[in-house]
């Protein structure tokens, strides 16, 4: 029968996407209650949100642009979470990548485009990967809880960035806390002009795809998942648990770092202090929402991107504060969590 032929893995991917579709209405409902109690018209608000996100090509491209960093981070987190490593440090890894990319784009700006562009991205990956591996190393060697270490490293990365953009890398001394623009040779090209849509989005989707293939189609992915699911059995199978923890964090950090590099080389063209308005945390929601499946992350990334983008318009047209979207995000995570348990319990009864 067709359903069986689709293959167990694809089935699971689809199953992972239905969760947001179930959890979102609940979150929106609660959001609607809050809106109503605050004196707003929920229907008007949501309609504005929808309009804002999807009304025309430009709007949709803005959604995709907002989704890009989320997809980078979310896909990387999917790998870390599948390895049972609670990487709360994607924010810091994003910054690390952005710093590395900016430095490359400025100081090696003379290089020709076909060299500089990929180099900047590679440096972004490296910066993020190293920052992530630091936490993995501390976990392996000292048993340091990765939740706390990655949170600490977030702040350290943010402060280092702050120092750089107000100090050594500042554009004009004493003026705005930002670096000079990176060389134009490093700018990621846009397509679908006159929108701002850039190839970074394509790179993000390709990365998500690549990580999906890695996790579910390769031996290495099997290894990573085995370590995350049953480390003792993994050891029994001859797997080196510690080096795979290091690898998973390198991948996760590298993906976040790439996100940072893309943000710099496609949108801002320079580095400044708040280059990430909390993408690292949104990324957690993005990955959890689809059961830590990189392919699903593409959709949840776009979904959250739509929520963000739409909420900005909602603020302008319906005068509803866009901050509400954070609450909806958090509620979505909670409903997924509640669902997840519900599903596990009901599946036990089915067999």
């Amino acid at each position, binding site marked *: 029968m067709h359903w069986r032929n689709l293959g167990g893995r694809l089935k699971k991917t689809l199953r992972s996407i239905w969760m947001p579709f179930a959890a979102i209405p609940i979150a929106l409902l609660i959001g609607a209650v809050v809106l109503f109690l605050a004196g707003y018209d929920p229907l008007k608000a949501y309609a504005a949100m929808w309009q804002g996100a999807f009304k025309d090509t430009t709007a949709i491209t803005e959604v995709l642009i907002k989704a890009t960093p989320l997809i980078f981070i979310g896909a990387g987190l999917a790998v870390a979470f599948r390895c049972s490593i609670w990487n709360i440090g994607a924010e810091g890894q994003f910054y690390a990548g952005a710093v590395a990319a900016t430095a490359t784009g400025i100081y090696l700006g003379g290089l020709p485009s076909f060299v500089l562009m990929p180099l900047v991205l590679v440096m972004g990956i490296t910066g993020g990967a190293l920052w992530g591996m630091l936490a993995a190393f501390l976990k392996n060697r000292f048993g340091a809880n990765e939740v706390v270490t990655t949170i600490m490293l977030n702040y350290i990365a943010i402060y280092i960035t702050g120092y750089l953009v107000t100090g050594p890398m500042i554009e004009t001394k004493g003026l705005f806390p930002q670096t000079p623009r990176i060389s134009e040779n490093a700018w990621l090209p846009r397509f679908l002009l006159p929108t701002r849509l850039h190839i970074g989005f394509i790179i993000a989707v390709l990365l998500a795809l690549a990580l999906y293939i890695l996790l579910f*189609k*390769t*031996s290495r992915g099997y290894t990573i998942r*085995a370590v995350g699911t049953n480390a*003792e059995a*993994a050891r*029994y199978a001859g797997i080196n648990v510690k080096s795979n923890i290091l690898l998973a964090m390198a991948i996760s950090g590298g993906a976040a770092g790439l996100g940072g590099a893309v943000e710099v080389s496609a949108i801002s063209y320079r580095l400044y202090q708040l280059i990430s308005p909390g993408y690292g945390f949104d990324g957690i929601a993005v990955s959890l929402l689809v059961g830590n499946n990189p392919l699903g992350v593409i959709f949840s990334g776009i979904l959250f991107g739509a929520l963000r983008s739409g909420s900005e318009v909602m603020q302008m047209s319906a005068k509803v504060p866009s901050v509400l979207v954070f609450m909806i995000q958090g509620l979505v995570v909670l409903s997924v969590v509640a669902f997840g348990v519900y599903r596990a319990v009901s599946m036990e009864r089915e067999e």
Partner: protein
Amino acid sequence: MEECTSENANQAYILRMENICKSFPGGVQANRNITLEVRPGEIHCLLGENGAGKTVLMSILYGLYKPDSGTIYFKGKKLDIHSTKDAIENRIGMVHQHFMLVPTLTVAENVVLGQYQPWKVLNDMDKVHQRIRTMSDEFGLDVDPSKVVQDLSVGEQQRVEILKALYHGADLLILDEPTAVLTPQESEHLLKFLRDLANRGLTIIFITHKLEEVMQVSDRVTVLRDGRVVGTVNTRDTNPRELARMMVGREVLMELKKAKTEPGKVIFSVRNLRVKDARGLEVVRGVSFEVREREVLGIAGVSGNGQTELALALAGLIESDFDEMRLDGQLITKRDLQRLNRLGMAHIPEDRQKMGLILPFSVAENFVLKTYRDEPFARRGFLQFDTIREYTRSQVSKFSIRVGDIEEEIAHLSGGNQQKVVVARELDRQPRFLLVNQPTRGIDIGATEFVRQQILVERDAGAAILLISADLEEIFALSDRILVMFEGRFMGEVPPDPALVEQVGLMMAGKTVQTSG
């Protein structure tokens, strides 16, 4: 009236557990209509092999489980025990195999844990300290109330557990395999201590599988086997041989077709293997043995005598020391051992759910747990799903494993079928040397027969098999030679002659037997 007769009976007995039945999901019947009577002030041993039901029975008494049926009479009254708190309040104390002590708290704090209302201020701890010191002196326990538990040795921690029970006024004290964690000197000390306690009027129930202890310290002993009571005797009226016979039984069913084979050359050998456990105590104390091709070497013994560590050491999963180890003629170094897994040692582990399988993974994924990195299951790093599926399907039918969909989570399979997957996977590697540890623990009859048959098939095909099992029936059915392991050493070797079961039972319980060689 029933109550009356029980009361009369209870004048002679302080505890009467009547017709206790307990089964667990999965079909395991741990206690089958057990009736146990214990006299006041006696030391009563519960003797039996693994799985005989001793711990479950005492856990019921201590409130950790509820029996399916049966009644408990204590000091003449019918007792309804719903929790350990009830048991403690009724003056029943228990010292478990795995201590229930909070490591970061002091002895005194552990003793009073759970005894007060939450808002009680601990301003009379010196009184507690004093009382502990007094009791410690009185009973010769040498316990310092101000010491933090994690700083204490295992023996000291056990004494804390004992003191805890006495502090709460236990009239009946249960100890579950207490000497398992002690040195010989500490064990001696403990037994003397228990005798002393009994002389003061305390009733003691002592779970053990060691005959030496039973003979040395008990007044009466009840032997359990397979969840049933075999008999209760006065210790001075019996002897180790008889107890061993009761413990293991005479009937060893041999329905398996075991062909007569001639063992070939030595495939695996090790000299003076020593392994330490997590605490740093030596649990495998210099064993040496060799296994030949077309031979099953069975290691019998009650769990907890070093078998777990022996298996893990041979599989390269924990550290060990040895003078010499050879596999297929080649000298193996310690570093090689870690790679042995990948080199082709097949290992059916003791705990399939924790180690042998990844439960949330699919049946197919579990089949290639050790081979997914190599051809033909992976090519250039990419998994070859069709090959994996085909392989799985063929294995499933070859081994008659009941599976709905090979892509479903293996957690959904029954224990027996899960074990079949592990067995099929390991045997398919056509190993020269196969390490098997408790292969039929917790699985149904059909799967058991099947797994045992497969081991014999592998043996006939030329493999050298090391079988570790606490199931004597299994050892006798499958082995060509039997070594008995007790407290980290081999007590002796026997051929699988059913007439020697008693002897094996004696060795399992710690009695050395003069072997004729």
